[in-house]
């Protein structure tokens, strides 16, 4: 059975990361922007695991462990910020939340 080379995993990771980046740029709903960021984090996780498998090193998987922890903390704080924002401004549209915009 042929083996899928690591290049394919890297390209898949790059495509997923790009889709996430496009989501951050084109969506105006703050929650969807947030989900796109999670997508980008997961694309990086895929690359970590692929390299960990190829180099037979556990370091990549340990890095994924930390990425997941930080993502969980980030999601909790970020969603709390969104709730506070919605309570004060009655909107979660990124275009209307322009108080700090230059």
């Amino acid at each position, binding site marked *: 059975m042929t083996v899928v*080379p690591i290049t394919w995993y890297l390209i*898949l990771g*790059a495509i997923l990361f790009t889709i996430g980046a*496009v989501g951050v740029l*084109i969506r105006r709903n703050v929650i969807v922007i947030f989900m796109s960021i999670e997508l980008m984090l997961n694309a990086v996780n895929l690359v970590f695991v692929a390299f960990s498998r190829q180099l*037979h090193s556990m370091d990549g998987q340990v890095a994924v462990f930390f990425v997941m922890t930080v993502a969980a903390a980030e999601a909790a704080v970020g969603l709390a910020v969104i709730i506070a924002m919605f309570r004060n401004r009655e909107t979660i549209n990124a275009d209307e939340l322009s108080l700090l915009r230059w």
Partner: protein
Amino acid sequence: MNPLLFGILALLMIASALGVVLLHSPVRSALSLVMTLFLLAVTFLFLDAYLVAALQVVVYAGAIMVLFLFVIMLLNLQADPQGMAKVGVRFAAVLLASLFLLAAVRFFVAPAALGSGTGMGGTPPAGFGSVEAVAERLFTHSLFAFEVTSVLLLVAIIGAVVLAKRKLV
């Protein structure tokens, strides 16, 4: 992994990732993201990362996405017609992203493949990706980072509670 299987997984993953970005309803976006995360967990299994695959399902597809859905339903968000940026911004974003993708594949993926041949490094040692292997590395090499993470989580819990409290002090 079998190339055909990888192709099917990759196509499904890209389709559901596009669903996250393109679907108008936030709930549909969230469910699409759950699908992407599950497919990623399956890919991790094929890469002998068993603990990471389990964590992916439990932590990401379970805990984090439940939090997202909970907030979406708490705020009672409807599908909004103004959910996308203006056409010019959209065009520029897709153009920039395609350039990024091309550059990433050309300058990072191609040299990585050249340096390592075409395979996946042969059969891994026994116990690779198991709980013992990850824990052994985590608690010897990254012990300090692990301990700092607990402080980070504590700060995040306190921050989330303070931020989401009804009355901001």
